[in-house]
């Protein structure tokens, strides 16, 4: 449904001009563009983990080989790159998400907490689960 009804105007106009500098020209656009870019490193991590699941299903040798492959300097560099962007994503997701958390959504009223708290609180949740998952994977729990 288009809401920009084309009005027939007798006045000739010059074409609309674009906002300058998007997406990388202005500093304030850069964090937005960086945030958008995170989808690529995150997808790479997801695919690597999928590869791991597949290796795990093929037996002990495949699993050991896959793990060993991760130790190469190239793979370590790639995974650090992906981790950096995934962490940036998590922090920014919680931070910009505070605006949704700040308002009434249907029957659920606004929480009435200060904005910075709403932005930082999810991070607490995220960090907790990172630690719990690491402990589970490391064998300390479960």
């Amino acid at each position: 449904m288009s809401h920009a009804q084309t009005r027939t105007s007798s006045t000739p106009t010059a074409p609309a001009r674009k906002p300058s500098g998007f997406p990388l020209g202005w500093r304030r656009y850069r964090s937005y563009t960086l945030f958008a870019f995170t989808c690529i490193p995150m997808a790479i991590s997801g695919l690597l983990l999928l590869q791991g699941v597949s290796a795990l299903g093929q037996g002990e040798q495949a699993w050991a080989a896959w793990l060993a492959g991760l130790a190469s300097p190239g793979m370590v560099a790639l995974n650090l790159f992906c981790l950096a962007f995934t962490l940036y994503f998590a922090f920014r997701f919680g931070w910009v998400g505070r605006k949704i958390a700040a308002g009434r959504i249907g029957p659920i009223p606004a929480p009435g907490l200060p904005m910075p708290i709403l932005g930082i609180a999810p991070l607490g949740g995220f960090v907790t689960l990172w630690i719990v998952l690491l402990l589970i994977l490391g064998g300390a729990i479960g």
Partner: protein
Amino acid sequence: MAEMRVVKFEVLRFGPETDTEPRFDTYEVPCMEDWVVLDALNAIKDDIDPTLSHRWSCRMGVCGSCGMLVNGRPVLTCAAFVRNYTGTIRVEPLSNFPVVRDLVVDLGSFIDKIKSVKPWIIRKIEKDVGQGEYRQSPEQLAEFKQYSMCINCALCYAACPVLASEPEFLGPAAIALGHRYNMDSRDEGNAERFDTLADADGVWACSYANECSQVCPKHVDPAMAIQQAKLTSALQWLHVVPKKSFT
């Protein structure tokens, strides 16, 4: 005699009867210390070049008429102090709108989008005047008051990167206004606004660049309204939340 500082202004000019495309004219304007860019534009028109066209009215940030790009950023020129800029100051009409003449843009699409969200109290049955006023508590007012502060200056439309490539996007001011009425306890029109707001060209076209809220001179924070409208609309689309005001 107050000190005047000569400031260079580069101003976009376009006259459809003489120009095929916009050009820039440079003016050297003696400015007082407390001048805003609008004062300089008026000085250009009064003393230097009477052919310059620009919109303005209240010169105190409440009418929304004088929005333009100053050094690439959408601002109200009545609130942009000359002393806060260094070097040549570049003044252009608002981006994302066709240019009618010089600094004047065609805001027709903006007006149409504002109207399309039905920005008025919708009641199933209108209350008779004799039945008295609608009562609203401060808490109920607080649910939407921020979103009611919009002065329709269209700076948010000029700033929005989505609008740059998708002119059909409903836009920040219209969505924030629709959300304002949906959050008003007196209103019963949530379902009537739904198709317009919850459209692929409505809230879903927004990519949360937050540029709109960065430039809004009245701190409406339309980006916040849009994200809240997204979650609300998604839950309503799933029929988990009914289309009504809960305040």
